[in-house]
């Protein structure tokens, strides 16, 4: 009997006899865990379920993309200071080093009664535990004419890193000097709260160097900058004087692809050369289709001890798709943190052990104000048993005092380590 096998049986038999186990355990080495989505949440969950079960639980990761392309750092590709290769990582280490079974496919549907998922390719996979980490879906129909404008190649979101990231940079490269780039921001919550403001910095950084007569217009449906407000305001004023205009409470309701015009709920129309229109967001399609997105039909409510959807047993939901706890951002770092809490809980439940009653989450988010200078926001979230939610610890967390190149080095250090932590 090898060690892994022995450990698997020990965990399982411990559970079978444990008087305090909350649910009937199964033999963990026969447990099938299926993970939908290989982003920061899903990839991390797949790896850590293998690790925490001492490589006994069978884990299958279903992801349509051939490689992992990071949203964090992708604004630098849009601004032209970095390449796609620098933000791309392979999935293969999850199988080579951790024994995760990788399937390149999409999940069409979940059968909660049979406990199976159906793939786009037609096959069906059985699960004992399902992890759903599908990221966000952009609600294109919430802005009139947006789907058509996208199809015509006029508007672009680039809010999921990939071909659109390159396409947006190409639009900026093709724009005349003296042109206008406009980014519109939906009402919070949306993926990556500081992302749009960092992107404005990166586009301005590109313009300053290459097309100095050009302008960056930010139209924000929110009343103020959603994250790192003071730091961004100062960076815009000092690094890009006269180039960036910020307009709060501007809610885009329609776009005209032919005339490249934005229409607002209240204010007058605005024309731009490059239109980066971000609509409202909701949980990824599979979560909404499965009926587990029970917060306004947009986000999934979860039990924060194990990230199980409140609407479905044995379905654990991570990352941007969930209805967040107070001050919890929809970020890659947070999704990775969710995944570790969920992984430990899933292994505990499968092995008949008690689920951790005091989990901890952290968030660290670096934003580049130009190609090398960076500011951060950080927080620590402890589980509060009375309120059954995560709460930030008073006196902890906070912002950078100012942009520095030292934090630029740490930002890349963060990226390389979280990519390895999630995928290698």
């Amino acid at each position, binding site marked *: 009997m090898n060690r892994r096998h022995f*450990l698997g049986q020990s965990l399982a038999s411990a559970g079978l006899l444990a008087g305090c186990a909350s649910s009937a355990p199964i033999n963990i080495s026969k447990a099938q865990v299926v993970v939908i989505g290989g982003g920061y949440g899903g990839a991390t969950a797949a790896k850590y379920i293998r690790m925490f079960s001492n490589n006994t639980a069978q884990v299958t990761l279903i992801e349509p993309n051939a490689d992992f392309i990071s949203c964090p750092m992708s604004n630098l590709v849009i601004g032209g200071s970095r390449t796609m290769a620098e933000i791309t990582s392979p999935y293969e280490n999850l199988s080579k080093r951790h024994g995760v079974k990788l399937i390149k496919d999409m999940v069409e549907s979940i059968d909660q009664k049979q406990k199976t998922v159906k793939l786009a390719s037609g096959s069906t996979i059985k699960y004992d535990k399902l992890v759903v980490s599908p990221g966000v879906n952009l609600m294109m129909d919430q802005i009139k004419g947006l789907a058509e404008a996208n199809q015509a190649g006029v508007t672009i979101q680039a809010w999921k890193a990939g071909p659109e990231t390159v396409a947006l940079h190409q639009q900026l490269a093709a724009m005349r000097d003296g042109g206008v780039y406009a980014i519109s921001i939906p009402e919070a919550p949306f993926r990556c709260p500081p992302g749009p403001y960092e992107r404005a910095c990166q586009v301005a950084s590109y313009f300053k160097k290459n097309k100095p007569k050009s302008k960056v217009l930010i139209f924000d449906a929110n009343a103020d900058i959603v994250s790192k407000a003071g730091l961004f305001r100062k960076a815009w004023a000092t690094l890009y004087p006269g180039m960036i205009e910020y307009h709060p409470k501007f809610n885009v309701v329609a776009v005209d692809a032919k005339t490249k015009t934005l229409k607002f709920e209240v204010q007058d129309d605005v024309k731009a050369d490059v239109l980066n229109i971000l609509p409202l967001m909701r949980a990824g399609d599979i979560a909404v289709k499965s009926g587990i997105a029970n917060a306004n039909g947009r986000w999934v409510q979860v039990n924060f001890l194990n990230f199980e959807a409140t609407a479905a047993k044995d379905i654990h939901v991570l990352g941007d798709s969930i209805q967040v706890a107070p001050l919890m951002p929809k970020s890659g770092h947070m999704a990775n943190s969710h995944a*570790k809490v969920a992984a430990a809980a899933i292994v505990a439940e499968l092995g008949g*052990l008690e689920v951790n009653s005091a989990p901890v989450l952290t968030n660290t988010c670096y934003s580049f104000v130009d190609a090398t200078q960076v500011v951060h926001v950080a927080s*620590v979230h402890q589980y509060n048993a009375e309120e059954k939610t995560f709460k930030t*610890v008073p006196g902890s967390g906070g912002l950078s005092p100012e942009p520095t190149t*030292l934090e630029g080095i740490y930002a890349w250090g963060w990226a390389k380590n979280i990519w*390895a*932590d999630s995928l290698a």
Partner: protein
Amino acid sequence: MPLIHFQQLMKFSAINLSLLGLILITSPSFAQTSASNMNNRSLAATSASNMNNRSLAATCANCHGTNGVVVPNSGMPDIGQLSKDEMLTKLMAYKSGAQPGTIMPQLAKGYTDEQLNTIASVLGKK
């Protein structure tokens, strides 16, 4: 990168072995006293607390690498070289404000002293 892989394996093994040790120690009484709830409970609690400790320490891994094994030349401090005591001293200094830094003073304040002790126990060089 065979070196990291090897280091990671070493770390995994150390942790796995400690878990194995705990199970082995409790297993004989487990087998002999067939259905003592007390023993079963302590066995389950031991394994669960071991995993909870690893899970807590994993909140550091996003920046400092899985099991504290940092990506080489990534620009991030290599905490894997610190002993348990060195790590705990450093974490407590960040928490009290004695040790300046960029992000660590803000993060360290979010953990209880006991949690920092647990993290140092799991990640400190053995």
